[in-house]
């Protein structure tokens, strides 16, 4: 037998908690984006674990879709960050209010 699923789920929960904490602690927009990637990876790990637990390929297919959405999100988010930097050379989240309009 392999490793029990609960271990993977606890690991994913810890990773999600660390990503959420980092998102709240850091003020650099790029690093906040990386923390969002950490949280997405935690959810992917949960999907794969439940796919094994329930013997269902659907969990792995969902991870594929999450990967596509994450890639699209990173592309658009980084474009927004670049547009933000054109206006003002600062990378903290407090500067995002200038994007209005």
């Amino acid at each position, binding site marked *: *037998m*392999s*490793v029990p*699923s609960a*271990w993977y*789920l*606890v*690991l994913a*929960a810890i*990773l*999600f*908690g*660390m990503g*959420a*904490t*980092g998102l*709240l602690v*850091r003020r*650099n927009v*790029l*690093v906040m*984006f*990386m*923390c969002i*990637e*950490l949280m997405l990876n935690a959810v*992917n*790990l949960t999907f*794969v*674990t*439940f*796919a*094994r*637990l*329930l*013997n*269902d*390929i*659907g969990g*792995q*297919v969902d991870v*594929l*879709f999450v*990967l*596509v959405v*994450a*890639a*699209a*999100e*990173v*592309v658009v988010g*980084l*474009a*927004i*960050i*670049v547009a933000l*930097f054109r206006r003002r050379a600062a*990378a903290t989240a*407090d500067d995002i209010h200038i994007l209005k*309009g």
Partner: protein
Amino acid sequence: MLASLQSVLLADTSAQALAHASAWAVFLVGAAMILTGAAGVILLRNPVHCALMLVVTLFGVALEFIDQSADFLAAVQIIVYAGAVVILFLFVIMFLGVDRKEAIAAEPTKLQKPLALLMGLVVLVEILALSRVDHWVGGTPALSGALNGPGDNVQKVGQAVYTGYLLPFEMTAALLVIAVVATVVLSKRAGGAGNDEAGAVVAEESSEVTS
């Protein structure tokens, strides 16, 4: 006869024990990589170091995927995340020149860090508590095809994607096209609406060059 049977059983159990130990070893190495990388992303000051620690976490997640017989997803994880997303992060960091240390001292509110740590702990405890309610699993098993069985992992994922998940798959194509168009529109430099300052700077520079 009995002796041979016993030796076969012994070999079988030792092989099982070896598989068990290797699965645990892969899990523990992956978990160590994931937690080290996540701690690095949160704690390191330099954004470039954060991006490199993110790679460590992504490789750890790929190891856990392999440990759970998600071979295709492990390959895609490394190619898409470590190969494309992190490179994009690093490219933007270098392009914008923000690879300097974050000004940690200038906090808007004194309570932000303690409150953030508290919120992270609350999230973790909530997830763990909620998941204990139904002993981790609350759904009905195996609607879209079995994971275990004959055939490769890639074959099974592909069959699920191109039969039951065809409409979502087509929608991801539309999503990617929308993302590409949105990126081009957002990063168009001069002449676009709402980009006056940058356009003004470019115009000034060009007028300086011409004059």
